[in-house]
């Protein structure tokens, strides 16, 4: 479960997040929509323990992400917008390495299986990342996050660079994870993907959560209109 309580974060007197409160239960996929600089990434960085909020606090499964970020991270799978991997290692080696860093030593079969599940065919597993497209790298990043078998997933523009088919596969995968009782926060400005994937949606503007709704209550078109209205006004 993800809990954010009255978080405020300033950078040199510029408000990045303003009194934000949010709760995402297990089995729920929450889409945080917002334009660039709205505060989505800052929120995720606070949850990851890379930033300390000026006010308020956040917890992951009840663990404070500020005071005990190391323990909190053990429960989190994270996918960033630009998955930066080691270009001189293969996809398989990258996955193996990041798994080992998180304390997991998976066998070769398991590693191949994970990559296949994320949409990478066997033939590319042993190719160096420098020859991968952005979408393929993103898939390795997703495999790294999934390998953690976490109960909470934080995704910062995860579909960035993915082709429509891969994006769809990502949506299916996230839904499967939520069925397995994971709590998922997905920050994005891709209205369609958020509408397709999430159960609940929030719109963030200048660090404030200005609107929250259930996905079932709005169509993609309506969501687009609401989003544009909130962002423009």
């Amino acid at each position, binding site marked *: 479960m993800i809990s954010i309580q009255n978080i405020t974060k300033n950078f040199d007197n510029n408000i990045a997040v303003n009194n934000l409160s949010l709760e995402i239960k297990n089995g729920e996929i929450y889409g945080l929509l917002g334009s660039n600089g709205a505060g989505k990434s800052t929120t995720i960085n606070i949850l990851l323990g890379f930033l300390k909020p000026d006010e308020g606090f956040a917890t992951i499964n009840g663990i404070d992400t500020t005071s005990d970020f190391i323990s909190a991270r*053990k429960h989190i799978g994270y996918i960033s917008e630009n998955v930066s991997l080691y270009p001189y290692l293969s996809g398989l080696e990258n996955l193996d390495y990041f798994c080992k860093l998180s304390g997991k030593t998976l066998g070769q079969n398991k590693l191949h299986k994970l990559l296949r599940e994320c949409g990478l065919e066997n033939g590319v597993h042993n190719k160096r990342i420098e020859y991968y497209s952005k979408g393929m790298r993103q898939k390795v990043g997703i495999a790294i996050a999934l390998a953690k078998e976490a109960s909470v997933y934080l995704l910062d523009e995860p579909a960035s660079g993915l082709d429509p088919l891969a994006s769809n596969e990502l949506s299916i995968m996230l839904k499967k994870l939520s069925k397995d009782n994971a709590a998922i926060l997905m920050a994005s400005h891709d209205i369609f993907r958020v509408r397709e994937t999430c159960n609940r949606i929030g719109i963030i503007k200048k660090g404030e959560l200005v609107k929250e709704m259930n996905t079932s209550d709005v169509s993609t078109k309506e969501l687009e209109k609401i989003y544009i209205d909130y962002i423009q006004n």
Partner: protein
Amino acid sequence: MINIIIVEWKRFIRNKLFVYVTAFFILSLLLIVFLGIEQNYNQQLRQTQAQKYVRQQWESLENVNPHRAAHYGTYAFKPVNVLNSMDSGINDITGNVIKLEGHVQNEIVYSEASQSLSISKFGKLKSSLILQYVIPLFLIFLAYGSLSNEKETQRLKLLVFQGTSLTKITFAKSLSVWIYGLTLLVITIFIQSILGETDLEIFTRMMFIIISYGVYYFIVSSLATYLSVRLRNNTSALSSILAIWIIWTIFLPKIWGNAVEKIYPLPSRQSFKTSMKIDRSKGIDGHNPTDKRREDLKVKYLAQYDVDSLKNLPINFDGIVMQQDEEYGNLVWDKHFGNNYNILQRQKTLFQISGILNPFVSLQSLSMGFCGSDMYHHLDFLKKSEDYRRYLLKTLNDKHAYGGSRTGDWKWTVGSNFFKSIDDFSHQIPKITSQMEHYLIDMICLLFWGFMLPMIIKHRTNRDLV
């Protein structure tokens, strides 16, 4: 940590430029070590031949007055060991032969002239040059971007997020680079030990060389990695570490060296010689029969042997006078040379203390010391050769005095058997364990840096840097 090191090594090995540079380093080191040992061997051979020739001439002295033989004198050769081919230290400028004769303590002469032109301009190409300057520079190039690059690509966030602390990542990256330097170092020493003659003493010294360079490489790689994690980007990290490297290797040693010479100045050669001459003139003049001090000694010996004139003395008084002259000369030498020795020691100590600010100075001092080519080894040779000169002169003067001749009998001679019976000069490089006190400051400074940097990395790398 081992996983990070393995991945770093994959980064190195899968980079063709790195492989070429490494191959170039290994070949260069192999060639330099081989040429150094070859040159060393030739020098050793020439020296042995010269030493043998000098000894043969000495032993072939036939029917020569002992005091004439004292003026004829002999030569002491500073021995060359296999480690000199690695770091020639001050040997290039101090010379390696000293003439030992009566009445005078000569200065060491004949520095190795085979590369004099290149010495004066660039310094000799020894493996120490590569190990002290080139390899650390390459370690800097490997380390400076190791973390700033991770930061710039946002990969550091992913690494830290996976559950590895930034401190651990920094240590692992620094160790990866350090292992590379250590590998080149061990290869060099290994080649050195295979190609050159190695005994227990040389082996012990090699171990100390590996430890000293190993600690220094650790300092360089840790500092470069630390700056890489602290500073904002690659450019800042590289320029900072290069600036430090230039200050360490070029500016600080020169500035501090000049300051040390000002604080503890050595007398000029002229004033040293003048003071020696003045003090020496206060003693007995062995060749001046009207000298008053000689007269006092004569009265003493006449009384001792209960005779009224030198003619009736059963010994050769000239030999006694010559020895007295030598002993007085020795006191004068001890006083003035001792003074210089103290100044040199103070200079060296003060210079070594700068290792607190500049570990490069400590490394250089230890490298020369363990290779047997520093000031202390040189002074040890000078002392041993002077001791031999004293032994030689005393033996000759005693023969002159008590060998059967009478005072004034300058035509009295001895045969070659006597000259053969005098031991030849033999000098071995002192055991390094007996010399360690001279290098304590260097070792402390190097260890201080070696412990301080990990402490800084441990306490100054936190999540704010990610």
